[in-house]
């Protein structure tokens, strides 16, 4: 079973990666990137690496998603007021 689960997650990740790159809407691709992070968290958990999974969940997905989104907010606020 484990092989098929990993295969499915990888296919999802590849589709997500293409969508992140090809999306013209930046906030949209950040949300997709957080989804990508979630997929890799599941993969780390399957690969018996709970420490890495936890780190990726809080740092790689959580904080980096927030930082990306806030960057967009900063840029957006400048654009509106220009």
């Amino acid at each position, binding site marked *: *079973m*484990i*092989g*098929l689960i*990993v*295969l499915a997650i*990888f*296919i999802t*990740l*590849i589709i997500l*990666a*293409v969508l*992140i*790159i090809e999306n013209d809407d*930046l906030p949209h*691709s*950040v949300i997709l*990137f957080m989804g*990508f*992070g979630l997929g*890799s968290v599941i*993969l*780390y958990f*399957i*690969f*018996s*690496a*709970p*420490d*890495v999974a936890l*780190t*990726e969940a809080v*740092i*790689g997905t959580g*904080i*980096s998603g927030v*930082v*990306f989104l806030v*960057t*967009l907010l*900063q*840029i957006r606020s*400048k654009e509106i007021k*220009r």
Partner: protein
Amino acid sequence: MLDSFNQTQFLHSVITIGSLLIFAIGLVGVLIKKNLFKIFLSFAIIESSLFIYFIGMHFEVEKVAPMLTDKVTKFSTNMTDPVPQAMILTTIVIGIAVLALALSFIINYFKLTNNMRVDDMNELGDEK
């Protein structure tokens, strides 16, 4: 037939092909996208693909996490290698530090020039 899906060999091939594909997608993103934000997003994807590959290759079916729990009471070689996990843990934190710095530079640059495109960054050059 279903058994062959659970072999370590199959798992490793999936991991290799999958993470190489994600790496290639990220690389294409870095090369063709002109938006600075997208470029750093693509770098984050590339790094993720490396991490997944490195952790995945050190996993074999039936191996458990390098940790003592109620079921596992002794450290043995039937555990995944802790060194790559420690390395990736370190690298993830480094990745977010570099990413945050890059994004702060992008914010500052954008506030000064209203420009986010990498091929319009023409402040530097011999004539200037």
